[in-house]
């Protein structure tokens, strides 16, 4: 614990003997109930957004930069997939079934639930100090030494010590903050920038991005970044103990000795 300045001591850790005397209801959770609930709602929404978004992309797997783009204009890049529309030249001799109707309905419904859940989480996080205490890296960690320790232990695929069952290391903290305060806001913004109705009210939403097609392209890349985060996140959960980490996010209990007492 001494190597990492930001690690938060779990309540009771300093007095392991006293924990056994405490009634069960006072055992502190690894994650607060609100974090756990919003985590899983967001997970469901994100998966729905991912599937429906991928489905929508298939109707036009070409990306452009600027204001406009269609099959008569040169794309920035193309995805090597067949399309669900026969007007799009993909090089494939067949057309996939059109699934955009329910995909678009589901995309917006999941987006609404995710945004409202995210708002609740951010307000909660600001008021309770969740971001400051659990996610903001400590000063000592924001040094080259702090980074190199964290990176080295990651590279060695070292199973984290027990203190990490109770806190996040500096790389986790920075990644989570990036996802919460950069990637999610960016993906919402670029999504709204594609709405002709929304940008009629607030044109700057799209003009500062360089146009509607630029917004679509950025939306795609941010979604890919979020997908990469999801993959790494799940991989790390598996590497460090799928059962205990998942249990901590569902029940709040880590199953470590600090709590088992």
């Amino acid at each position, binding site marked *: 614990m001494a190597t990492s300045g930001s690690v938060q001591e779990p309540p009771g850790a300093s007095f392991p003997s006293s924990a056994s005397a405490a009634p069960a209801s006072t055992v502190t959770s690894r994650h607060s109930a609100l974090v756990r609930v919003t985590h899983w709602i967001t997970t469901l929404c994100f998966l729905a957004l991912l599937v429906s978004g991928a489905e*929508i*992309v298939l*109707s*036009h797997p*070409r990306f452009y930069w600027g*204001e*406009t*783009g*269609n*099959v*008569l*204009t040169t794309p920035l890049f193309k995805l090597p997939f067949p399309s669900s*529309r*026969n*007007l799009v030249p993909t090089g494939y001799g067949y057309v996939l079934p059109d699934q*955009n*109707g*329910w995909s*678009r*309905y*589901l995309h*917006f*419904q*999941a*987006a*609404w639930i995710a945004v409202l859940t995210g708002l609740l989480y951010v307000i909660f996080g600001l008021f309770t100090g969740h971001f400051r205490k659990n996610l903001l890296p400590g000063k000592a960690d924001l040094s080259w030494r702090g980074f190199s320790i964290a990176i080295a232990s990651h590279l060695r695929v070292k199973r984290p010590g027990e203190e990490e069952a109770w806190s996040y290391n500096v790389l986790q903290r920075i990644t989570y903050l990036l996802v919460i305060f950069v990637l999610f806001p960016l993906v919402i913004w670029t999504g*709204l920038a*594609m*709405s*002709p*109705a*929304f*940008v*009629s*009210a607030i*044109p700057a939403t*799209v*003009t500062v991005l360089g146009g*509607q*097609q630029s917004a*679509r392209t950025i939306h795609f890349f941010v979604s890919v970044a979020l997908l990469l985060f999801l993959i790494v996140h799940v991989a790390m959960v598996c590497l460090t103990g799928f059962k205990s980490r998942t249990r901590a996010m569902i029940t709040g209990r880590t199953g470590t000795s600090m709590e088992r007492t």
Partner: protein
Amino acid sequence: MSDLSRRKLIVTGLAATAGAAGLGVAARLAQKYGLVPPDHGGIYGLGETLNYASERLLTRHSLAREFPESQISKPPFPNEIPPLSDAFKRLEAEGFADWRLTVDGMVERPGSFSLTQLRSYPSRSQITQLACEEGWSYIAEWVGVPLSYILDVVGIRPQARYIVYFSIDPDWWDSIDMADATHPQTFLAYGLNGNELPVGNGGPLRMRLPRQLGYKNVKFITHLTVTDSMKGFGKGLGSASPEGGYAWYAGI
């Protein structure tokens, strides 16, 4: 039961009751102010209603972006069109001289207009973007007669809530609320980039509302009906789109 859990139970109960009552009031208010779309039912009704209600509150009077001439897409992109009927081909062969737009429903003076008549009315042109839900888009200069002008000519009754518009293709129809119908950028387009509107882009007459996506801009318009309820039109979901799985509101 301890005091703590009883208090918890009472507080939770009160909060749940207040929440349910709040939702009830919100639903009533939304209905009263026209924030509930015709396709609000079903599993995706929540997202669709939130989309429509929030954009209606935010964008009732806002104008779609207009562009300089230099940004007009060359060439304009003619999207896929459904197979054209024999009736359409006969009208096309005669240069659409017999094309009619009939207007009926809750109006004082139901009417039928030829393209020549429509062209004689005050026209409006705008350089706007047409964006398809698939992801592509183009910018063109559209010329037409504002829908609000036609509605003034026929005299809509005060209880009117929706304008239903029909393509010559019998399976293709849609509707908009009065905020969209009377919006200055909503019009029946008959010209594109200085020429007559090509068939590939919906000519001779296309509904044009640049604050909604392409599929709401129905091609080959022959008929408008003014109504106070979408019940009785198809399955009552507002347009052929929800019946085919697509949202009625296409502002996003």
